[in-house]
């Protein structure tokens, strides 16, 4: 087998050194049980594995081949070739959690840069070195808010991605939390008034339906009642032209960094972003990288504040998380460094301008209403027919034209989410407009 270096002669020699005659003697503690033998396909060489998996990949319609206006929490962005190349370097790809800092300064320094970029983007003091994805980060934020406030009630806005809301509710259901998920807020009419028993209120910015709301007043209302405000950002690029959650008074901001770190990969791996105020840092989940000095006085970086974590605190830890999304964080950081302030802002402006142009064009189509007065790069369209049926039809015309809201809320049959990024040129936008007219 090509991945196994030992030869039979070496195996024999090693068995002799160990003082046994068969390797199976080392497995003698495993109880013998009657069982149906395991059946797997026969081993395959590289050619055969490639043939099999290329055939499976070929059954999918890749967004690299046809126009895609799909968003709903996962936004397709162009990833610079350098990022793709760099994260395949073995030094980043095949190392692990930097437990031994002297030989892990590459990963540690980038994670320190990542934490700084995320904190600045969210307008908060500190960020961790990543969680699994935006949804699990929102759950961790809610759990953290419970620790900070000592309260057990969570309000989730109807503008939060339904799969994020489900994650928060599902993962808190067994610890006595009263998790109230408000009805879907496609029209952006929701008003939340904390009453004083909430650990936190969770909102999404821009919302699942694309609306951009200023949550400054809500932050004040939360704080007046002793609750935290958690802001979920499923499209962090929006923060290139939108004021940050921190500027609005958010206590915790979480996000999904996948779209800026890598290709969408059917939705995973994700990249959970997590930032908060410095007073709350000891309640934070996840790994943290900190700056320090080595024995010669040179600057270096280490994993730090481990007394919050499971390997030290066990059941009293702030979270059970161990392996996180390290390489995704590295890719995210690289992309942001390549964009810089100028590029990030420009990319955000470009997404918004393209979407704004699309909004004014589709608004002219009979039977199509744009529900958004505000948006970043995604719109909710109200149609005079079934959005799901239209999307199926468009797929037949080589167009991934949007995400029907009925996929999440079955009774919202006439709503279609349409996102436009820098990857969609004018020709693609015209194609979409034609499809919406049919």
């Amino acid at each position, binding site marked *: *087998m090509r991945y196994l270096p030992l030869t039979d002669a070496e195996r024999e020699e090693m068995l002799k050194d160990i003082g046994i005659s068969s390797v199976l003697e080392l497995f003698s503690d495993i109880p013998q049980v009657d069982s149906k033998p395991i059946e797997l396909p026969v081993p395959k060489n590289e050619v055969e594995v490639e043939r099999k998996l290329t055939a499976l990949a070929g059954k999918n319609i890749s967004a690299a081949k046809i126009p895609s206006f799909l968003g709903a929490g996962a936004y397709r962005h162009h990833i610079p070739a350098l990022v793709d190349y760099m994260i395949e370097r073995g030094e980043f790809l095949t190392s692990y959690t930097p437990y031994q800092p002297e030989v892990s300064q590459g990963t540690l320094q980038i994670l320190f840069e990542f934490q700084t970029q995320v904190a600045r983007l969210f307008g908060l003091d500190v960020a961790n070195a990543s969680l699994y994805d935006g949804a699990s980060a929102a759950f961790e934020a809610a759990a953290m808010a419970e620790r900070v406030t000592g309260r057990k009630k969570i309000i989730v806005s109807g503008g939060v991605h339904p799969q994020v809301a489900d994650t928060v*509710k599902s993962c808190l259901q067994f610890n006595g939390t009263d998790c109230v998920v408000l009805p879907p807020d496609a029209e952006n009419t929701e008003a939340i008034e904390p009453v004083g028993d909430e650990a936190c209120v969770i909102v999404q910015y821009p919302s699942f339906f694309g609306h951009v709301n200023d949550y400054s007043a809500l932050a004040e209302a939360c704080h007046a009642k002793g609750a935290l405000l958690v802001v979920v950002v499923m499209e962090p690029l929006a923060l290139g032209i939108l004021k940050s959650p921190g500027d609005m008074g958010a206590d915790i901001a979480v996000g999904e960094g996948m779209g800026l770190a890598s290709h969408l990969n059917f939705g*995973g791996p994700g990249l959970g972003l997590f930032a908060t105020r410095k007073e709350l840092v000891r309640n934070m989940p996840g790994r943290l990288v900190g700056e320090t000095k080595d024995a010669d006085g040179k600057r270096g970086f280490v994993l730090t504040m481990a007394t919050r974590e*499971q390997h030290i605190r066990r059941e009293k830890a702030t979270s059970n998380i*161990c392996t996180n999304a390290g390489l995704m964080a590295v890719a995210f950081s690289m992309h942001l460094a390549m964009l810089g302030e100028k590029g990030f802002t420009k990319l955000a402006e470009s997404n918004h301008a*393209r979407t*704004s142009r699309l909004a004014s064009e589709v608004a002219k189509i009979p039977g199509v209403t744009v529900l958004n007065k505000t948006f970043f790069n995604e719109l909710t369209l109200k149609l005079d027919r079934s959005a799901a049926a239209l999307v199926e039809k468009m797929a037949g015309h080589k167009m991934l034209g949007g995400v029907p809201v009925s996929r999440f809320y079955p009774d919202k049959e006439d709503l279609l989410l349409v996102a436009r990024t820098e990857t969609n040129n004018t020709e693609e936008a015209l194609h979409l407009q034609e499809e919406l007219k049919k």
Partner: protein
Amino acid sequence: MIAEEPLLFEIGSDDKTAVDFPPQPDAEECLGSCRRTKKIGLPGLSEPEAMRHYTRLSQMNISVDSAFYPLGSCTMKYNPRLNEKMAALSGFSEIHPFQPQNTVQGALEAIYILNELLAELTGMKAVAFSPAAGAHGELCGMMTIRAALTHRGDAREVVLVPESAHGTNPATAAMCGYRIETIPVNAEGLVDIAALQKRLVHGEKNVAAFMLTNPNTCGLFERDILKMADMVHEAGAFFYMDGANFNAIMGHVKPADLGVDAMHINVHKTFSTPHGGGGPGAGPVVFNAELAPFMPLPWVEKDGDTYRLIEANDGSVHSFGRMRAFNGQFAVLIRALAYILAMGLPGLRQAAEDAVLNANYVRVKLQDILHLPYPGTCMHEVLFDDSSLEGTGVTTLDIAKNLIDAGFHPMTIYFPLIVHGAMLIEPTETESKRTLDEFVAAVRSIVAKAKEGKAEELTAAPVNAFRRRLDETTAARNPVLVYKDETQ
């Protein structure tokens, strides 16, 4: 020679970018009152500068590609590049989680095939494929168990965890609202079965589950596992196995045959997907028929020739809900699928055998100079303590740092906590005998120096790494977690 590399914030600037944009259309701005007015503070690099910055940083890392990395309990095996190539296929990498299902049939089929293979290898009924890592898989397993117990109206509140367990086990159970009780480990490094029996048979009938890592964190197979399973089931509890160490036994035994009700699989350990400097991994969970109806969304069903992604609970099942958005760590799962297809059963069995052989080879080559707290054969990893270093002034930490100077990544140190000065060595099956011999020689040389009274030299290590020992105490006491520009 590795060059020093400043922080991005010291070399980048606001007006530099490595990305060119086409002109953008004129359009009305629709941002309400939320237009950003402050700068973000994101320095940029040109493309050549970015290449230099990250290439230099990469050179400061040791990785499996560049060095032996026997980090116990982490299974740092070789990561085949075929897996990377397969995951990068446009038909996998460029698909969106919410495309119409008829446009992603190949992706759903791939998940379905992998699930079938995992079910076959473990003897289990169903697979929850969405968990993002081992600890996330544990949470999936424990919430599923809690949902099943809740469904039968059984409000049990305790989870039993051996004292040798990974910290993730008690942390996970606590997140599900359980109280944790610790079961001691006996002089052989195995679960004290008398203590377990006493708790389950004579204690309060409120145990929801027993969580066991097997092979355990001492590198030993819990040989009384069938008895434990019987006791756990007799007490009306579920038996959760932490599959972190499945690499040692894959293809040799099906966990279902050992009485296990649920188990997660760390595909970044067992099935060769890269560890990425700390993730992303994946932690799919296999369940028996009793627990399967309660597992989280989403999952994939086969209906004739069509594969269906089940994303929402239509009420026909008791799924506890969802633990993340979208469709699991798809790109990681594709790599695991490529690996299992490459290996087949003979390859997986051989991998387990070679992993166990390599660990035992290291054991016999070092047991005369390092103390084995639990003598006898081990599985895929061998555990030493620091008692043979007593009086030398040299600690486990010093051994680790000297291994860095010898060109190796150190073993796991100070874990498991039940052993003083633990050194947990997991060579994996992808290391050659030559590498093991070199490693053994390096450890022997370090220990010999310790016994010759050269503590001063050894405690100075590493001297050949990019950095000398780092001051972790100050880092934790006065945390500096983001860059602050001192000049402003």
